[in-house]
């Protein structure tokens, strides 16, 4: 197998597994899948899921059925920055439709698509528990709240710049 956790990731993986009683290591599948997704380019390939199964000493199917159930796991490649915009009731009545439309226009992509340069993916998601700070989106592990068109412009500029610096 080509995919493997490095030493630091493996230490974190062991910490996650150690939270559960002896023989209950399957309980760690959700956190270890998060770790795998963060470590292997933001999505879970079959190879990545098989690797998690091997580490936890469970059948691959036990990992697949979990990975396909929870919405935070990406089962195909995504852009470097994923804009997960909330569209549920409270965000909708606070204007999320306009924000979604604006992002589509600005990035020239539809929900579910990634920009050609591979930087941005737009994903429409259901309630993220930020209803009082709506409209909002999640980018990686951060919430970006009280969105306006100007704020969206600034966020896109910020990540474009960040990506350019990293190259």
């Amino acid at each position, binding site marked *: 197998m080509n995919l493997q956790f490095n030493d630091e990731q493996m230490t974190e993986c062991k910490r996650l597994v150690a939270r559960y009683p002896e023989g209950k290591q399957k309980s760690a599948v959700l956190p270890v899948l998060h770790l795998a997704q963060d470590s292997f380019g933001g999505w879970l390939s079959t190879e990545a899921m098989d690797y998690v199964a091997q580490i936890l000493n469970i059948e691959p199917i036990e990992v697949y059925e979990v990975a396909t159930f929870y919405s935070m796991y990406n089962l195909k490649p995504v852009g470097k920055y994923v804009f997960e915009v909330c569209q549920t009731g409270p965000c909708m009545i606070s204007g999320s439709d306009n924000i979604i439309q604006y992002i589509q226009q600005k990035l020239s992509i539809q929900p579910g698509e990634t920009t050609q340069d591979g930087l941005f993916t737009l994903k429409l998601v*259901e309630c993220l528990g930020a209803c009082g700070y709506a409209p909002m989106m999640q980018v990686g592990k951060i919430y970006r709240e009280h969105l306006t068109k100007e704020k969206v412009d600034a966020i896109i500029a910020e990540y474009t710049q960040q990506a350019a610096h990293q190259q």
Partner: protein
Amino acid sequence: MGVKLLLEKAHIPGIRSYDVYRREGGYRAVEKALKEMNPESIVEEVKKSGLRGRGGAGFPAGMKWSFIAKPEGVPRHLVCNADESEPGTFKDRYLMEFLPHLLIEGLIVSSFALGSNDTYIYIRGEYAWITNILETAIDEAKANGWLGKNILGTGFDCNIHVQRGAGAYICGEETALIESLEGKRGNPRIKPPFPAIQGLWQRPTVVNNVETLAAVVPIINMGGDEYAKIGVGRSTGTKLISACGNINKPGVYEIDMTISVEDFIYSDEYCGGIANGKKLKACIPGGSSVPILPANLLLKTAKGETRYMNYESLSDGGFATGSMMGSGGFIVLDEDQCIVKNTYTLARFYRHESCGQCSPCREGTGWMEKILQKIETGKGTSSDIDLLWDIQRKIEGNTICPLGDAAAWPVAAAIRHFRDEFEWHIQHPEEAQIRNFGLQHYADPIHVPA
């Protein structure tokens, strides 16, 4: 200003850190509980307090605790439900983000009362930064002797672990949460057996909401009887309300359940009135699954009495003319909002979140979403409203877990109180794309389908 038991110290600079929290009187409840009380007397205090589950169901917490089985040699577990996912609800997030040690303190006392040596916090996966805040607080508590082995020399061992979910509303249902903690899909279990008998890894387990467990701290500090004096009737203590939608001051507020709904919406201390000088049209007072109420029924009950922000008053009139306290997710809609569209987004939410185990919910939520989308986009027909009514009725009460009910109630209530708006959408498909129905309901009597 109302009584504040949970958020009283939320604004003290540095309260998130152990040192400041301790200096402000933190961890006194652990000292009192572990040194001066025993597990039975703690359960007794919680019973006396009248504390009801703050996650949405409102079941008496002390009674839930007293159900836990204690077979010889089998470990027991306390699990904290931090999977806050009900649209409109963001109170637990606020509490964990700003007062992590309050939750940890409540967890230690509750773990002692229930005999849990390994306690788990199951937090929704998106709250990744809060997971870090909680883990830091746990490390600090451990470094200061409040967690780990032989706490305060009492012989009680306790560790707290945080597990992130991965995006599934259903995992807020306690048996789905347990399945998820075991590393499986979040499919709710058939009850009985209840978690108190066979829960996590088939061991006796209690699952409580974040706010419920934090409330244990003031209950221990002041005593159950004193806590029960706050509030009214069976709505004792304080409740966190997360207010959102078209109001001037969205946010998390602690109320003592004697305030009227009207004061809560219009006073400057709380929501500060409807934003942009608009009129109030409707409100979903307890998270997206509870019945929506039009303004007139929200502020006054069908009998014309003032409605208050507590369990009994919000449900006065049953589902015909009342609603529920639920999780405290208070969603306010102004005169410009479209009830059909709002109901459609909620139906889409429940279709997305149905685990797919029970046919009425798996199929019914999809049907409701499609029909509502059809009406919203101007393609509805006159039989669609009755069809929607029929489908929601066939979901309610026919599923393993309450998600089916949670999906059915918003649709039922929207039709019950706003049928004329649905009819207008169907009769004026083109106009409905350009403008909203507004406040025209108030010229009409309230519709209650037979």
